């Protein structure tokens, strides 16, 4: 009985063993294990940590204009020029060249290199530049109607809208003239424009845009169709093209072949949504910036601490986290496994004061006595412990940090030294409580209430506030905590709720016209009612000045007025921490986009 019951099992076991014996011998390692194809010293790769995932290959639209897109496009799209590590604009002649034909009217000729090709093999030519003009200039857009009563903007369904454009390219009113070889165009500005060098370039491939717009499959025909539509101002076709140009190149996972075009050394081969992008060499690229690394992988993670730990754990080779003093120390503790570069970022922290809200800094409060108001402002600025803030909050992150003493120029700008020497900022070099007190006495005011606006959840700003409050109190200022997470909106809409504001402006380029809106009377970012006719006049000159030396002089003149008028004060430039695995050489981060990716073609893995 017992034996009978065990029989089926014995049979089963026997059968399976027999089955095994009959088949190929030696299971285990060699036979079934064929995985790990990526093993062994194959292609070189570098893994870079970044905080925000890319979402559009077209960074020229309003919504695509983000660093997250710019850093990837920097590697996949070639351009006429780029910023080197000294923030000098360097032309990339292997892609194309440009020359200024005349100053007035400003005329520039762009010529593409013979070898410049998109990753599908289609040459990059005039059609792409003509499309770029349509996209960048906003001159083909349908007129945006504004409802008189509500101020509401009305854009119809099938209307042409590329992007809002920029004031520079908007000055190119006419369709660019195409050169005879079809590889060059000439653009003419209606007015001279200071920053013309960075204003124009290739955007998206014309043939691909046309394909996405549903105009056809053939590259050559498509290019012709785009040029024709733009030259003839064919509204119906333009609406489709504009739509494709604006939204067709948006993706958040591996792009389709119709969306994925590279003109630069790398091309996206895999994009795992929200996780990572893999860039591999673009076989069609023949320019000067061909990288030495086979694969660049960008991994996304928001948390700086998480990035640092991932770096420690070998999951990242390079990172540019929004570091704190502690994450920096943690990185430094890794010793010679890591190269760390501390430096500055394009954003600068500053304090501005409202001058038309009936508060302590408004001449109206002193019966229109502008001089008195200015003295109060100067007194307040003198109490701001700029050096202490830098020492306590910034130096732990950037040992070489100094106060930033210019409103307009980045501290690594070639003209910065000269600017600081001449602009009059040395008046505020030292925190001077005594001088502040005597200025207040001269103005005849004693207890001054200052409502102080800053971003509440930003720990560093909250700390700065604590230091400012303590220091200002010594001179008789009662600084009231107006910290608010809604500060960004309040700046421009609630001037009656604050008297001074602490925040940062970010520079995205070294363009000279960028600061215009901050200081001009009624300028978009001049929320404070600051008005100086001379400054306005200088900015008018600057707009149309194309000689760099003269531009620099005008900027210095502007700043002299700003500092003398006690417009506000600058405190420091944001510290940036870049770190990379020390076996990677040739990394040279810069302070503006693309930061750590800058000149990626020099990256190399040693040993």
């Amino acid at each position: 009985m017992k034996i009978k019951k065990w029989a089926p099992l014995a049979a089963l076991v026997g059968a399976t063993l027999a089955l095994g014996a009959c088949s190929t011998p030696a299971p285990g390692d060699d036979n079934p294990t064929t995985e790990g194809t990526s093993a062994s010293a194959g292609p070189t790769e570098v893994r870079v940590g970044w905080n925000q995932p890319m979402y559009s290959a077209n960074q020229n639209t309003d919504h695509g204009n983000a660093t997250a897109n710019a850093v990837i496009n920097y590697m996949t799209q070639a351009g006429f020029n780029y910023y080197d590590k000294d923030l000098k604009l360097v032309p990339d002649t292997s892609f194309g060249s440009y020359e200024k034909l005349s100053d007035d009217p400003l005329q520039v000729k762009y010529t593409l290199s013979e070898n410049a090709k998109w990753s599908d093999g289609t040459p990059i030519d005039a059609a792409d530049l003509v499309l770029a003009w349509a996209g960048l200039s906003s001159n083909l857009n349908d007129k945006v109607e504004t409802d008189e009563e509500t101020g509401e903007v009305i854009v119809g369904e099938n209307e042409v809208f590329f992007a809002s454009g920029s004031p520079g390219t908007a000055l190119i009113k006419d369709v660019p003239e195409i050169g005879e070889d079809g590889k060059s165009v000439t653009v003419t500005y209606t007015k001279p424009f200071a920053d013309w060098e960075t204003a124009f370039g290739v955007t998206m491939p014309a043939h691909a845009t046309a394909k996405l717009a549903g105009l056809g499959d053939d590259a050559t025909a498509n290019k012709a169709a785009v040029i024709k539509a733009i030259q003839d101002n064919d509204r119906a076709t333009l609406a489709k093209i504009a739509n494709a140009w604006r939204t067709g190149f948006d993706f958040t996972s591996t792009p389709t072949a119709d969306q994925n075009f590279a003109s630069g050394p790398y091309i996206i081969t895999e994009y795992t949504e929200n996780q990572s992008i893999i860039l591999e060499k673009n076989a069609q690229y023949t320019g000067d910036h061909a990288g030495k690394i086979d694969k660049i992988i960008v991994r996304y993670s928001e948390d700086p601490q998480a990035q640092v730990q991932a770096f420690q754990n070998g999951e990242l080779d390079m990172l540019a986290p929004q570091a704190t003093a502690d994450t920096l120390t943690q990185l430094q503790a890794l010793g010679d496994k890591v190269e760390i570069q501390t430096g500055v970022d394009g954003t600068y922290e500053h304090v501005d004061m409202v001058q038309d809200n009936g508060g302590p800094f408004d001449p109206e409060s002193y019966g229109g006595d502008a001089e008195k108001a200015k003295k109060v402002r100067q007194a307040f600025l003198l109490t701001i412990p700029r050096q202490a803030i830098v020492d306590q909050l910034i130096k732990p992150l950037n040992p070489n940090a100094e106060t930033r003493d210019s409103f307009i120029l980045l501290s690594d700008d070639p003209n910065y030294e000269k600017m600081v020497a001449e602009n009059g900022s040395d008046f505020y070099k030292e925190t001077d409580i005594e001088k502040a007190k005597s200025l207040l006495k001269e103005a005849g005011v004693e207890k001054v209430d200052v409502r102080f606006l800053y971003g509440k959840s930003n720990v560093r700003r909250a700390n700065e506030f604590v230091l400012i409050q303590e220091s200002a109190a010594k001179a008789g200022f009662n600084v009231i905590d107006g910290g608010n997470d809604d500060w960004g909106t309040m700046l421009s809409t609630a001037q009656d709720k604050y008297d001074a504001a602490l925040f940062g402006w970010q520079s995205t380029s070294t363009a000279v016209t960028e600061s215009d809106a901050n200081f001009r009377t009624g300028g978009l970012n001049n929320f404070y009612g600051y008005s100086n006719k001379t400054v306005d006049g200088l900015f008018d000159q600057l707009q149309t000045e194309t000689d760099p030396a003269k531009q620099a002089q005008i900027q210095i003149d502007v700043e002299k007025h700003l500092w003398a008028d006690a417009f506000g004060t600058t405190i420091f430039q944001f510290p940036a921490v870049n770190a990379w695995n020390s076996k990677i050489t040739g990394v040279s981060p810069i302070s503006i986009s693309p930061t750590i990716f800058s000149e990626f073609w020099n990256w190399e893995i040693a040993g």
Partner: protein
Amino acid sequence: MYNFIFRRALSSLGVLLVATFLIYVLVDIAIDPLQDLLQSTAPNKEALIAARVQQLQLDVPSPVRYLGWLGGVAGCFIGKCDLGVAWTTNQQVTDILVSSIGVTIKLVTLATVVAMILGITVGVVSALRQYTGFDYTMIFISFLLYSLPSFWVAVLMKQWGAIGFNDFLANPELSIGVILLIGVVAGIIWQAIFSGDLKRRLIVFGSAFAVTSGVLWYMIATDWFRKPSLGPIVILLTGVGIAFALTAIMAGLRNRKALYAAVSTAVLIAALWYPMQFAFHGANAGIVFGLLVAVVAGGVLIGWLWGGYDRAVSMRISALVALLGFGLLFADRVMQAWVPYFNSSAINGRPIATIGSETPGLKGSFWTTQLDSYTHLILPTLVLVLVSFAAYTRYSRASMLEVMNQDYVRTARAKGLSERVVVVRHAFRNSLIPLATIIPLDFAGILGGAVITEKIFGWRGMGTMFLSGLQKSEIDPVMAYVLVIGFVAIVANFLADLLYAVLDPRIRVNA
């Protein structure tokens, strides 16, 4: 009953409508889509602002915009869902939702299952050993875990669980002192679980100590951490052990038929190891699942063949043994992928990951990708298990104590039933009833995503979708989250109420 369900569903729908409306209005107050523009230095700022106002209809009052949103949601009923667009990236919310639900489910299911099994086991044992050292220790540990902020745990886990463990793997050696110490700790834990008189405790302690340190020493000596594998022998031994344990708990070792069935299943599993190597070769998820079903069916068949007076029990036990045994076979196969994985350039000898859900660019067989996803899952899963395990321990401990005090348990004992039968048949099963009504409610919370865990480990699930929507001032992803979570929560509530009524006849349904 149907009437009840119908009325309940209708009112739930009403709740969802009101809730989404309120939240829509609240979120609209909380976010400011123009913020970045107001701070921008772009010279054409006004045009940009105007364009965005137009794009997002910011000039329309939020209740009116809500109607538009609701219209899109209503489209789901006719198969055309429109949950809006995440405007900063121009992504369809439905697309984001699909991917993030997937991520969240992957992340939390394993954690929940592990936490539940572990928590209930510890809770039940703790209740049976009430007011013993083990009970106090477990209460303390579970309260302690329950009192830890999860990001705290996550940061520490990364430091020691990933960076530390990977450093250990680079040179996996433990001093003899450490090995002995771990053995002592294991011994103490096991003797506390078994409890009993001093002799029994000493025996348990001794054997647990010997086995643990011995195995650990063997693992170190054979470089097991670098080249892990189980092999047919270990599978056979473990399988037989499982067979005995399961039989002891579920049927009692006196039920010989059940024991034979369980043991023969374990033997079969071990015998299958060799042919399985071929079956697993080039497998995919479908094949593996098919094999699993076949093996479990085999277990059921063995149980049936052995029969006996309680055939169903034998079948159940054998099926369970087969399931766990298959787990061993699977684990063994995954381990075989370890060495090439460990040495591949993408991993570089540091397998335990701290961010993301996969190693980008890693290509390999089904087994390699499985292994890769486990090395990424392990830390976040551990964190989630640690922080949620405590709750299950407490539910099940309280519930078990409650039941053990019931009259029917006394009656069962009075009848002279063995303690095993009393605990397993009468007490344990009944103690699960209240748990069954909690789990649906729990599930709703779980789907909500482990916001903090996701954030720290760089997983982009539901929680991240919600959070980043809030931070980037995108109302549509936030609302999609609210919609899904609200729906699940309400359904879960409903289910919990129903389960009360169905499982416990003492509750009357009234709604």
